[in-house]
């Protein structure tokens, strides 16, 4: 078995999860694809340095991916977009008629958060990062991480409770 074959045997079962992790951090599929590609190439180049055997691979490659994504985020947060009227338009999608799985409902609520809040929530609850590590990764003060997380959880509570009460009303 070649090095490539060994790498892909470990990588392929993970790639769907990795793709969605990047999507959750970066907020869109195009950037997630670029980040996954870059992280996979980095991981392949460093594959011979993987310690802890095959069992460590999922955690190891996920860490490379998260680092890649936070680098992109830091860079993106330094970009000052030229304001356009459409930037202020709501991105709230139409409520689907079909039953939405629980995970998708949570993601839908997280996805609609402003990027500053979404990134903190995803790094905290999907990647289980400590608040100080999030501050370092995003290059923002610890106090800012705490206040964004607090505000984001309040917004999510309102959003998800509204969904729930809407469903209850629909069931009546």
């Amino acid at each position, binding site marked *: 078995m070649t090095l*490539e074959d060994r790498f892909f045997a470990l990588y392929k079962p993970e790639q769907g999860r990795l793709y969605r992790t990047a999507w959750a951090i970066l907020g869109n599929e195009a950037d997630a*694809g670029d980040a996954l590609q870059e992280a996979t190439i980095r991981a392949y180049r460093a594959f011979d340095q993987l310690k802890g055997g095959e069992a460590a691979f999922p955690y190891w490659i996920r860490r490379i991916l998260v680092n890649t994504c936070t680098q992109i985020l830091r860079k993106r947060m330094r970009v000052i977009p030229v*304001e356009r009227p459409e930037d202020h338009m709501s991105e709230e999608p139409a409520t689907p008629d079909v039953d939405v799985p629980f995970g998708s409902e*949570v993601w839908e609520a997280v996805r609609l958060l402003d990027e500053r809040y979404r990134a903190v929530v995803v790094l905290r609850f999907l990647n289980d990062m400590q608040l100080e590590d999030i501050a370092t990764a995003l290059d923002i003060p610890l106090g800012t991480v705490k*206040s964004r997380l*607090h505000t984001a*959880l309040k917004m999510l509570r309102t959003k998800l409770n509204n969904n729930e009460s809407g469903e209850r009303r629909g069931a009546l």
Partner: protein
Amino acid sequence: MQCDDIRLELQAYLEGELAPDERAEVEAHLSTCQACAEEARAMRGMGDLIRRGLNEWVDQGTVPAELAARIEVHIRPRKKVWWQNWQLAAGLVTAAAAVFLVLFTTQPERIASIPLLGALFMTPDFTYTAAPGPVTEKLPKPSNEVHPQNATTEKEGITLTVNLIEQVGHLTHIQYTIKGMTLDKERLKNPVTHPTLTAAGKKVSLSSFNADQRSGAIVFNAYFDALQSGQSLTLTIGSLPAGEQMVQGPWQVTFSN
């Protein structure tokens, strides 16, 4: 600590990330403040819910086939036949060019007399016609260089230098550096700090720009609508943050590409 301060610490408290003294302070507050205790319970529930929901969504992920193929091609390059091997091809081209150069510089009339080679190589990208006709230059591609090189202006202790102009897809990328200003993201959102570009007196639309703090200067990359080569361009910035103050410009650099 007041309720507002306690609430900012609740996430760290719930995940066991507080130092013992901070933890004791939060616990003492929660034992006496019903509103914060209720907030802590709600937060714990919401954190668990978000964690479970996001993990469930991620576990259902699949990669678009096109992306999976793109990644695999990067890692598993197809086996190449000898003429697809770029190193070998580059070597052959270099060797051929060297032979041609020797022939061209020593015996140009012999090259011109060979029909195919003459047609291929004797139409140069650079033409120099001596007197009595005018000197003409024909460059193979639009120039990416800034003329004059590193065009600079200085005012109020702030120096603006244009380093690079290039075509990127359907946009023109202009890189410039500014010394003496502060990278203040909030104040850089103010349109007075945005670069404006005019070509032959007409304003060119700005698509986006970014700023990157480097040692000693801030590097800006601005992307404008595509430009023709050889135009006279003026980059203007009205006002910039320097320390606590906004400093009035304008800083204006005229150059051509």
